[in-house]
């Protein structure tokens, strides 16, 4: 039992060792160079165990002298970044004779229960190899405690497990490919369910580990101080789970892609896309974040460009170039932040001049004092670079023009993923990087952000109102809905920010639902024009019911999820940005107008004769129910009883807002 419990630690230790000794060509010592003085002692560190379990325990590290001369050990201490749960007994300065050894006991006692992991390094100061430079040498050994879970790593990479099966599946049995892809998305869905079950909503920053849970943390590329660091907190846990769900829904929604159109490739790309999206939400290292961020780009390019509508190539290239432009701005900002960061130690205890670690950038660095860059305040300049990069993804008016094209041309399931998850990567990125790392610049820019949010709400609403294509209407409505997010995030009040996060989740559910609904009728008729329909309710009543529910959720009808997010953002923002909030509130009217109008134009009135043959007797089938039902239930549940979802983010939003020096009260009893 003990061994089984320890296995992950042993494995992670082995990984760590592999990373440490990576590289080849160990330098050969000079043949005729003066040999090291024989008198000196040679340090050897022997851990009996460097892993600890959750309950906390002690481990011994043996410091031995393998050399022929004496070895002076001048200090032994625990070094860590931020708070640590490791302590060690003080070892008095002593000299070890040849062959002598001393045991140091390290104690791990977590100050809080909960799913967490601790990292620190044991530093041993000694005089091995003197003469090279004055002063003592320091050797370190990595310490790790807590739950060494692979859950998030499994979650992120499990979609890729399906790839070999998909690609090597025998010809002639392609009909099973869809089931295979569905199964491949069920693995991360299961992992996400486990993640939600394990997630402790009360786990605040004060509980340690910077407030992140289920962390996995190893060195990746030492040359750039890049680490593989994943973890979730209240900001990301909901979006991570939603991603796994939407991917499954998209796999079901892809059933209508014909075998002849290279289904194998389509499903493979969908799985790669899922890994990229999940990775963005769990990354806690800027390099890793960027890699996943970009990993989304290429599959999306091919998914739109190969399986899309008539103007798919134009839409795909436009999407690619637009979002890449945003990405490179983010890359510049990441590098600038890196070089402005303070020195630190990596997770295995080696010193690093700079860091890409998001928690360390947030909590151990203050970029306000950094010297001006090209005449601009450093924090503000970097903030703008990041914001523009993320705004393209959101997308914010006037950087939105790729979105309608991409949505209109993309196949249904890809639109579902695009609207459900990809757009949220932009708003999430703002919260995770702009807001958390550069709070003062956020306060500086908040009025503009709120204004842009209000503009997006109105512009998106007006464009949706003017759309004659149902899919384009839904695409523009996304722009409006995310405008609410922006206003809420800019307001920096607990209610507004929690509302914004709720709105992201709600929009993920609702917009995915709407695109699926558009797909239902498009599959049957090959037509999406609002004016081409009418009277669908008479032949497809069940479809009409779900359609109405989806569009009601989109317009913010109380009892459905859209209402909660919009009301919370507006209420939370009213005190801070009155004008923007009032303007955005008019957006609700616009939303009501275009949504209701869409329902009326498609479902009521007279059914055109040409559709009678294709629509009569073809109401929603089992597969469509399977993809729609989870989203319908979620939209209802989140609207009727939002508390569990709000609870996920409340504590960590308070932590986030504490960075701004604003009131840290949670949601209070108001909800």
């Amino acid at each position: 039992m003990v061994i089984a419990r320890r296995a992950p630690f042993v494995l992670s230790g082995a990984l760590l060792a592999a990373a440490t000794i990576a590289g080849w060509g160990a330098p050969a010592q000079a043949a005729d160079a003066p040999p090291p003085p024989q008198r000196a002692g040679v340090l050897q560190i022997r851990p009996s165990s460097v892993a600890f379990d959750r309950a906390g325990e002690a481990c011994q590290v043996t410091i031995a002298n393998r050399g022929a001369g004496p070895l002076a050990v001048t200090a032994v201490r625990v070094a860590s970044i931020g708070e640590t749960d490791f302590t060690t007994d003080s070892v008095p300065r002593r000299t070890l004779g040849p062959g002598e050894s001393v045991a140091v006991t390290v104690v791990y006692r977590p100050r809080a229960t909960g799913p967490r992991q601790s990292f620190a390094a044991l530093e041993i100061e000694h005089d091995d190899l003197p003469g090279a430079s004055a002063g003592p040498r320091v050797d370190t050994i990595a310490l790790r405690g807590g739950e060494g879970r692979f859950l998030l790593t499994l979650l992120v990479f499990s979609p890729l497990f399906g790839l070999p099966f998909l690609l090597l599946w025998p010809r002639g049995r392609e009909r099973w490919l869809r089931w295979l892809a569905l199964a491949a998305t069920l693995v991360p869905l299961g992992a996400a369910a486990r993640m939600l079950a394990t997630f402790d909503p009360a786990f605040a920053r004060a509980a340690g580990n910077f407030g992140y849970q289920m962390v996995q943390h190893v060195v990746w590329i030492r040359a750039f101080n890049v680490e593989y660091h994943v973890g979730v907190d209240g900001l990301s846990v909901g979006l991570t789970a939603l991603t796994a769900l939407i991917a499954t829904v998209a796999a079901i929604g892809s059933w209508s892609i014909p075998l002849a159109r290279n289904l194998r490739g389509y499903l493979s790309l969908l799985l790669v896309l899922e890994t990229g999206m999940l990775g963005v939400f769990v990354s806690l290292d800027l390099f890793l974040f960027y890699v996943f961020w970009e990993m989304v780009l290429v599959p999306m390019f091919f998914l739109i460009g190969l399986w899309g509508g008539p103007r798919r190539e134009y839409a795909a290239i436009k999407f690619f170039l637009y979002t890449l432009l945003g990405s490179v701005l983010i890359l510049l900002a990441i590098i600038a932040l890196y070089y402005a960061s303070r020195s630190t130690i990596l997770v295995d205890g080696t010193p690093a001049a700079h860091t890409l670690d998001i928690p360390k950038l947030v909590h151990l660095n203050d970029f306000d004092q950094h010297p001006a860059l090209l005449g601009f305040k450093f924090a503000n300049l970097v903030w703008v670079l990041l914001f523009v990069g993320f705004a393209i993804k959101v997308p914010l008016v006037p950087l939105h023009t790729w979105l309608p094209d991409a949505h209109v041309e993309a196949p249904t399931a890809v639109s579902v993923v695009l609207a459900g998850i990809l757009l949220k990567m932009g708003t999430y990125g703002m919260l995770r990087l702009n807001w958390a790392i550069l709070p003062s610049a956020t306060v500086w820019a908040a009025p503009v952000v709120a204004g842009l949010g209000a503009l997006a709400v109105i512009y998106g609403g007006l464009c949706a109102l003017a759309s004659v294509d149902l899919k384009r209407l839904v695409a523009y409505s996304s722009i409006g809905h995310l405008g609410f997010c922006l206003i809420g995030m800019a307001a920096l009040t607990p209610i507004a920010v929690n509302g914004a996060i709720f709105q992201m989740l709600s929009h993920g559910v609702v917009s995915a639902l709407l695109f699926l609904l558009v797909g239902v009728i498009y599959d049957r008729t090959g037509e999406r024009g609002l004016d081409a329909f009418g009277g669908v309710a008479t032949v497809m009543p069940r479809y009409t019911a779900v359609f109405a529910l989806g569009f009601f959720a989109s317009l913010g009808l109380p009892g459905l999820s859209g209402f909660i997010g919009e009301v919370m953002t507006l209420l939370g923002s009213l005190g801070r940005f009155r004008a923007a909030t009032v303007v955005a509130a008019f957006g609700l009217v616009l939303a009501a107008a275009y949504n209701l109008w869409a329902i009326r134009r498609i479902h009521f009135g007279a059914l055109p004769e040409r559709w009678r043959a294709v629509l009569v007797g073809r109401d929603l089938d089992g597969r469509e129910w399977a993809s729609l039902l989870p989203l319908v239930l979620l939209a209802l549940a989140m609207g009727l009883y939002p508390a569990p979802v709000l609870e996920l983010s409340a504590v960590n939003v308070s932590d986030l807002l504490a960075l701004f020096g604003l009131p840290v009260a949670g949601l209070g009893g108001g909800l």
Partner: protein
Amino acid sequence: VTGGALSNAASWRPLIPELILAVGTIAVLAVGLGRRAASRGWLLALALGTLLAAVAATPLTTEPFISVRQEDPGAMRGLALFGGLLARDGFADFFKLLFGAAGAVVVLSSFASREGRGDEPGDRALGGVLAPAASMASPAAGPPSSGEPRRGDRDAAEYAALLLSVVLGADLMAAATDLLTAYLALEFVSVLSYVLAAFGRRSRRSAEAGLKYAIYGGVATGAMLYGFSWLYGLAGTTELAGVRAALASAPPLVAGTILALCLAGLGFKMAVAPFHTWCPDVYEGAPTPVAAFFSVVPKAAGFALAFRFLVGAPEATLSSDAAAAVVTGQGPATVVASVLAVIAMISMTLGNLAAIPQRNLKRLLAYSSIAQAGNLAMALAVGSPAAERALLVYLGIYLFMNLAAFLAVTALVRAGEGDTLDDLAGLGGRAPLLSLGLTLAVLSLAGLPPLGGFVAKFAMFSATIERGAAGGGPIFYALAAAGVANTVVSVYYYARVAKVIYFDRPRAGAPARLRVPLSLAALVGVTAAGVVALGIYAPPLTTLAERSAMLWRGP
């Protein structure tokens, strides 16, 4: 021995990798000229064995190096051979590995490109070594006369010997620490390259390529030689260290003139703007494996020499302050650095913009490699330890991605297709693995993660921004911004390659399935896998680059 110059007699031992190459070259020639029995298989084995032996000998003969700092045993100071004519240090060793690997891949692909085909019309003229070039040959090239049965074998031997010699010359370029050896090595590489470019003897385009290359190269290296003569007059020595010190104290007009002249020769090898004009014509006209070779080996050798020449290692001749400035890469940009930064910006912008309208794949890759040279030239402008490591990492990854792209074109031509963008149409369905390899290569060249090209660009851009943040001045921010903006521009044509492969429909009458020789497909696969592997786990390369760097962080 503390890094002092070795005597002539003692200098041969550290020169073993070069000696292996020299002996191998002669052996290949001898076998080719010798008895009838010497088949192409033997030649291939001999050439490949020579290259691999030279690569293997490189880490095995590092023994006499001296670790300069005990805490950092990775940092090596080199040995000065032949009284300071050549250096044997980590930097040169890195390039030996790079050139050896590139040479091996090119030799293999050149030979592989004939496999599965007999001596066809036109094929013979090229010794059967270069089937791609054969298919480009003018239709007028009739069946070969039966009077020269071993013509092909002899050509194959000449070809292999030329390739090995260029690798040898490139090794020497990377090791040169004296104006004399620098010039000799550079001319050695250049002259042999002219011959290689014109190796498709019956192809007018190949002949034109060789001629253009020769004329342009003659002028460029001539200008450089003239610059060297000024340098010698100024410094009174031909050692790079002394020359650099003299240059630093020369009047600006003199220093500027000299630098302009020297940059002509170095820029010609690196193929950076404005010395790039030969590049598209030569790549297009030369046989595809040769173009692949040109795009990696002479270019990387040019960068190695330019880095030694323009940045160099902290030498005893420099004052300690100057040495510290070189080591840490701090301080404001010098005029030289600014000029190099401008060259880098022009090169990447021009290369990328010119690549957009290209229809011929080899021309497109030529302009792409000009743009990549602009990215690489950022390291020369920045000149910090981080920039040196970035240069090595970039070149290491560039080797894989650029070779993968050129190998894919080689395979395409070998399979009987043309070398234009239109020939790629619908390739995704006609040759799935080849398409995947080419797509990965171009997306990596564009710098998209999780492919190797991203690691390379990240290293380069971060070194540039670091220099800017360390007080280098706005020029470095401008350089980084230009690099990033160019990434977006480049994606336009790189992504278009992927687009044509997968989105477009094949030409009418195109074969439904391409027959690509297994060995070529395997080479594309290996290089493309390298691109992916280095993107996902770069530490083997970054560690090697760190160990190989001349400059190191200050104490």
